[in-house]
């Protein structure tokens, strides 16, 4: 019995577990550690039109049950990503979700137009929630109108379904979610990091060079669950959930909240084998809990009958 196969717009997934963008590079490093074919999909590092070096170091800091990062969207730029990275990943039978970013709407459009032509890119993830860059990023994700229009712009040029990645740093996440749904989003991914900061006790200055950074890891899981629970009841597009996932139990909790697939971020740094481990454990856990298929868990916290034929492969 295949309890994990999952279909989402553009994505036929062996299982609904994938590494989150920015926490898996372009897969090369992990490919030496396990067979990437085990993954449901791969969300690659944010790609911008031109190469970006990102922020000065230190770029990460540890917090209680979490970490801050301010990488600043470092990436080799659209053409290198398409040639080298997507080329490398093409030998795997794994759909790629390309995380796209930029400073201007034009940037998003440019990356979307090109990268969506790549053979293995099956969906885009529109990153309008990066808290670590001065322009673009989160600025697009905190205002409903802006979020909607960048979604629409990207939808117009993309060859593949577009998932929009939401920022948790907002008063009303449902409003943003509905706006991007209106703008034509095929799905949502949530949550990106919470904006945070740590100060060095000796110097009084921020621990990371950028000052603020994005908070991720188990610490933010309750915020992610709350937001997915809220949004999933009010939109009709599927949600790929993320934020602190580190175990098969966490995956189920995200499904209960309303997710139809999940991504694992920070936990890859703690245990680089975490994704295949979760994928291996999930069927056993589902069996123990009495579910024939993981899709039965979606929205169980609020649905009368959680099963939706739609998400099930």
């Amino acid at each position, binding site marked *: 019995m295949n309890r994990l196969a999952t279909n989402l717009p553009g994505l036929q997934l062996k299982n609904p577990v994938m590494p989150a963008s920015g926490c898996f590079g372009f897969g*090369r*490093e992990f490919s030496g550690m396990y067979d990437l074919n085990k993954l449901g999909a791969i969300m690659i590092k944010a790609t911008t039109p031109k*190469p970006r070096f990102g922020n000065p170091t230190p770029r990460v800091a540890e917090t*209680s049950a979490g970490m801050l*990062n301010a990488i600043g969207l470092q990436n*080799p730029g659209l053409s290198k990503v398409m040639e080298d990275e997507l080329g490398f990943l093409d030998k795997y039978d794994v759909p790629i979700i390309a995380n796209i970013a930029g400073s201007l709407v034009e940037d998003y459009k440019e990356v979307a137009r090109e990268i969506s032509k790549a053979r293995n890119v099956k969906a885009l993830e529109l990153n309008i929630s990066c808290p670590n860059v001065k322009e673009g990023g989160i600025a697009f994700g905190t205002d409903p109108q802006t979020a909607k229009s960048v979604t629409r712009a990207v939808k117009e040029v993309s060859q593949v379904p577009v998932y929009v990645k939401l920022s948790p740093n907002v008063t009303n996440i449902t409003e943003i979610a509905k706006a991007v749904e209106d703008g034509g989003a095929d799905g949502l991914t949530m949550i990106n990091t919470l904006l945070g900061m740590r100060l060095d006790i000796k110097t009084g200055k921020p621990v990371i060079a950028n000052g603020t950074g994005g908070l991720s890891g188990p610490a933010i899981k309750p915020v992610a669950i709350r937001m997915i629970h809220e949004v999933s009841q009010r939109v009709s597009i599927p949600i790929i959930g993320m934020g602190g996932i580190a175990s098969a139990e966490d995956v189920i909790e995200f499904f209960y909240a309303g997710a139809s697939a999940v991504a694992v971020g920070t936990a*890859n740094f703690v245990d680089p084998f975490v994704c295949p481990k979760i994928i291996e454990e999930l069927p056993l856990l589902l069996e123990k809990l009495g579910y024939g298929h993981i899709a039965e868990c979606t929205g169980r916290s609020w649905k009368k009958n959680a099963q939706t034929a739609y998400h099930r492969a």
Partner: protein
Amino acid sequence: MIKNENMRVISQRKIAKTIYELTLEGELVSEMHQPGQFVHVKAGSGFDPLLRRPISISSIMAEEKQFKMIYRAEGRGTQLLSQKNNGESVDVLGPLGNGFPVEAAYGNGGRVLLVGGGIGVPPLFELSKRLSAKGCSVIHVLGFQSKDNVFYEEEFSRLGETYVVTADGSYGGAGFVTDMIKRLEEDFPVIYACGPTLMLRALEAEYGHKKLYLSLEERMGCGIGACFACVCHSAADPDGHSYKKVCSDGPVFRAGEVIL
């Protein structure tokens, strides 16, 4: 190949003020081939602390399937690590990174200089062992903060001439490792170094034209090259977007390869 293993604690010894030497045993040792590589250690169970800690491999005993690391117990992670007792296990990911190129020292004539500062000293020990084994004549200059912090002087002395300096002059020579090197008045064609960035910069300024290999330190997320936390600019392109990752391209670079 990079592996993840719960390794067994064989011994845990305090060897100087807040400095511990930990010996671990496991299959992972058979993957350790190069001095200057490091491991990524999970100090506690659960999520506090969350991240692994990068610690250099200081000695490899391949036959016993054991290796040693030497670390300073300062923050929460390393303090937890220092509480591990014999027979308990430690979650280790490794070996990581590219270490010191031992071959670089072959056939250059003259003695090979190893320069260490503080907790940069440990990886030089395995390096020195290997150089000695290959017949190289090694000389060590080791810098510490103060007398209390000095460790492994005897161990290094067994492998070659060893000079210790302390910043506060409480032991050995007073001052910095660079002062001591000058006092030696010897020309070293090959130098390996590990220590604080300021020390590495001083060495680069003075000896950058030699075969100088520097082991860098940077805050890390993944330790395996996936998160872009630990990048530095390539020297060839100081303001551009080309970069090296300390964790997977380094931690050892040839002087002049990256911006310190």
